[in-house]
């Protein structure tokens, strides 16, 4: 008898999808308010009863905490995203309630992915998530580059799903089981299978050298979809990667461990070197996210030292920063349409106080310069990795962040030192403004008074 109790979050989202579908027949405008309240309810449910959902299962307390925390983050992230999405889509004449549906499916997929203990379930979750993402990439059907982004994402994504399935089948051939926990005695075949699984996951989190799709898709898609790709699905895939790493004790398997370290180093370097010459801000952010993925992989590898806390601290700060940056980007428009180039940011200091100062905070935080929370995020990852003996990787990581500082400074230079060339229109989106200002405050306050965040992570992993 399956205990349905542990599926409550997923069932909740599924029913939200069904309600939105039915509602959409009659009243298309209510989708946003409906789903916002739905996700608020879900966050409250998870915060209060999250652990009880899984109490009947045999999973360890740590795993349960991981599930609950990541689902809380996902649903809070969804609230922010849903609040943000209406205005930018309307500006592009793209607003349809189906967009919210894709979002819901992607979140449902992410939920399934995070809490799956079985490779096949994970595959289903990942596919559900990815298919919605392809649609979101190509949502601007009249725009050529958006279509291109969708097709590129889809074809490469399908390839990586193929890798995933092939890897899973090899593991099944070898061990006779799809379970993620249950792989004690490895042979060469399941090692190869597992490396294929890892490659597919690296693709999803856009770790180099499996990152080729990232800049193109980021650039081509509508900016609001880019924000989504950069945050929530990536977060979910990363958590799953973390679980695979932990449950299968990849640190003990020499070959896979080697792959992991290589990917981490390459991501750190490709991320910074790719970003230096970029002129389009979304491409720059794509490369910078690859660099940050390198840091997160470093955090995954050294989880033994300070447990999950360091990784989650980094992830939360990264998510908040990304939401903040994109909330500003979505708020700015040029006369001809969406604003794309870094040089169009010139002179933002003179037109908008709040935006330029928040941008300053975000980019210095991404560069890891105190006094912003990004510094401690990097600090903890580095101290965990040095304690676990990854000295060379840590050196690569800090040097890469010096190079990263160069292009973050270039953006700040454009905003603060240069005179503006073209007029940027302010969208005057109130929700967007609230979101980026509060993100900026969070980034600064978590530096000065980090107790709430640390305690949250701490309590969940006790």
């Amino acid at each position, binding site marked *: 008898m399956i205990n349905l109790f542990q599926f409550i979050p997923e069932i909740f989202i599924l029913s939200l999808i069904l309600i939105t579908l039915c509602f959409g027949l009659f009243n298309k405008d209510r989708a946003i308010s409906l789903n916002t309240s739905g996700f608020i309810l879900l966050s409250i449910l998870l915060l209060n009863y999250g652990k009880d959902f899984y109490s009947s299962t045999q999973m360890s307390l740590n795993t349960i905490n991981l599930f609950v925390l990541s689902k809380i983050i996902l649903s809070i992230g969804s609230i922010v995203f849903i609040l943000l999405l209406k205005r930018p889509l309307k500006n592009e004449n793209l607003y349809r309630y189906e967009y919210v549906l894709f979002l819901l499916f992607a979140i449902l997929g992410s939920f399934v992915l995070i809490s799956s203990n079985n490779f096949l379930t994970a595959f289903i979750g990942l596919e559900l998530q990815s298919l919605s993402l392809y649609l979101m990439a190509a949502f601007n059907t009249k725009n050529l580059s958006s279509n291109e982004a969708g097709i590129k994402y889809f074809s490469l994504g399908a390839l990586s799903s193929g890798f995933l399935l092939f890897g899973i089948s090899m593991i099944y051939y070898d061990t006779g089981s799809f379970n993620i926990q249950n792989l004690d005695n490895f042979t060469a075949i399941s090692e190869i299978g597992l490396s294929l699984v890892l490659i597919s996951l690296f693709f999803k989190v856009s770790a180099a050298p499996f990152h080729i799709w990232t800049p193109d898709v980021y650039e081509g898609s509508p900016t609001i979809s880019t924000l989504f790709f950069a945050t929530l699905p990536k977060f979910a895939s990363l958590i799953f990667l973390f679980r695979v790493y932990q449950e299968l004790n990849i640190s003990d398997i020499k070959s896979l461990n080697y792959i992991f370290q290589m990917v981490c180093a390459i991501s750190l370097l490709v991320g910074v070197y790719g970003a230096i010459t970029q002129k389009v801000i979304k491409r720059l952010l794509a490369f910078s996210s690859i660099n940050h993925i390198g840091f997160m992989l470093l955090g995954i590898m050294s989880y033994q030292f300070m447990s999950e806390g360091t990784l989650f601290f980094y992830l939360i700060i990264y998510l908040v920063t990304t939401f903040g940056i994109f909330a500003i980007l979505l708020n700015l428009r040029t006369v001809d349409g969406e604003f794309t180039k870094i040089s169009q940011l010139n002179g933002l200091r003179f037109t908008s106080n709040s935006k330029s100062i928040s941008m300053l905070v975000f980019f*210095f935080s991404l560069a890891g*310069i105190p006094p912003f929370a990004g510094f401690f995020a990097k600090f903890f990852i580095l101290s965990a990795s*040095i304690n676990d003996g990854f000295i060379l990787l840590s050196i690569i990581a*800090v040097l890469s*962040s010096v190079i990263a500082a160069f292009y973050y*400074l270039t953006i700040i*230079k454009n905003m603060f*030192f240069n005179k503006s060339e073209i007029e940027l229109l302010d969208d005057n989106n109130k929700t967007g403004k609230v979101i980026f200002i509060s993100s900026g405050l969070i980034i600064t306050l978590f530096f000065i008074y980090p107790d709430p965040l640390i305690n949250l992570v*701490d309590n969940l992993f006790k």
Partner: protein
Amino acid sequence: MSFPILSLLILTPIIGALTLSLSSSTQLKNKTIFLSGLWITTGEFLLSLLLPIFYDKSKNGYQFIEFHTWFDKFDINYYVGVDGVSIPLILLTTFLVPICLLCSINSIQNRAKEFVIYFLLLESFIIGVFVSIDLVIFYVFFEAVLIPMFLIIGIWGGENRLYATFKFFLYTLAGSVLMLLAIIYIISKVKSGNIELISDFTFDQQIELVLFLCFFASFAVKVPMFPFHTWLPDAHVQAPTSGSVILAGVLLKLGAYGFIRLSLPFFEYASIYFQPIIFALSCVAIVYTSIVALRQLDMKKMIAYSSVAHMGFVTIGIFTLTQDGINGAYFQMISHGIVSAALFLIVGVVYERHHTRMISDYSGVTNVMPKYSFFFMVFMLSSVGLPGTSGFVGEFLVIMSTISVSVYLTFFTAIGVILGASYMLLLYKNINFGDLKSDIKQLADLTNIEIFYFSCLAFLTILLGIYPKLLFEMINKSISLSII
């Protein structure tokens, strides 16, 4: 400790900056903004005067200690305190910042509010570096200093300011991230970031060498020592006058302070091991940059190179590892902080009136600006090291302490003094004497404000030169503790 004076010192400028930033900029005139900035920084200076008054010179260790847990889980604490080594530098900072604001009232016309805000933030971060006795917050403040400085040079700098400010930021950042790794390693070994605890800890010798080099990378860029000094002339030339003043006056001292506070007590073995290399680099710095300074056409660049040479004395003095040497180096730091700041102000005065810094554009200034020439002479002589001025004491002690190490070292150091005298006298002669150029005739002499801050600086220079005991009393005990 009941009264949190150090936290107050850190927070006052920040709160001032916040209040300023919340006030609406359209209603305030530039002058009001600068005046409010001046009130805040003068208050800060008076507050910092409490430190030497209530500091108990007979006690060992840190005083005015405050301890708060910051990250419980990771053993990072907000742990501040001062001893004899930090108090004079704090005073120097709080003394120079109001002068920086005073000298910019006329020259900074656009975005005055931002300017004052960045200076206030800069002040509190610098004070943070000097008061922290936990490695992590030391690093936090050490890095945070870069942000306001980056903006100050980038917004109000000269025409090539972008290149200069990027070079400044990235150079310093590259040095300090290596220090960050070393700090993390040390904390993981010692299980604490407390400076006193780490001083008692003995590292494995090979590892100690590596750790020393990591710290060295950061401090050598900041000081700056010879091969890492190339950012300094650029930054100085492009920075506005006030930026140069704070850069030469205080920021360069962060590196030397780091050597005294962290490198010496942590890495005793490595300090002795690397002694010859540091001496060699410092000698090159003294002789080479002095010769380079001789051939400069730009006044600011010349003084920037002279800064590198003078900081060479400081590093030599520190690494003689004797009481006299470090005392001398420390005295030279403070003296250089006052004198080079004053010299940059001197350049700023004529630049503001004549809009050129080329030495060849000036001649016979003493005919139209006698008061200016007088103050110029005082600071020039102090920079040369004339007995009776503060420059003499530091150089003398450093040269004296080098004899115990090596006579060759003494030789090169002494050559530096001669070269220093030649380029400074040359600069003074070319600008002040000679025929009066026609386009200089309309230059106005010093205003009352300028006379005010120049006399303050001159008074300090001569006071320290005549009565150096004032400073030595403060630092003797703390420095004797940091020697092996």
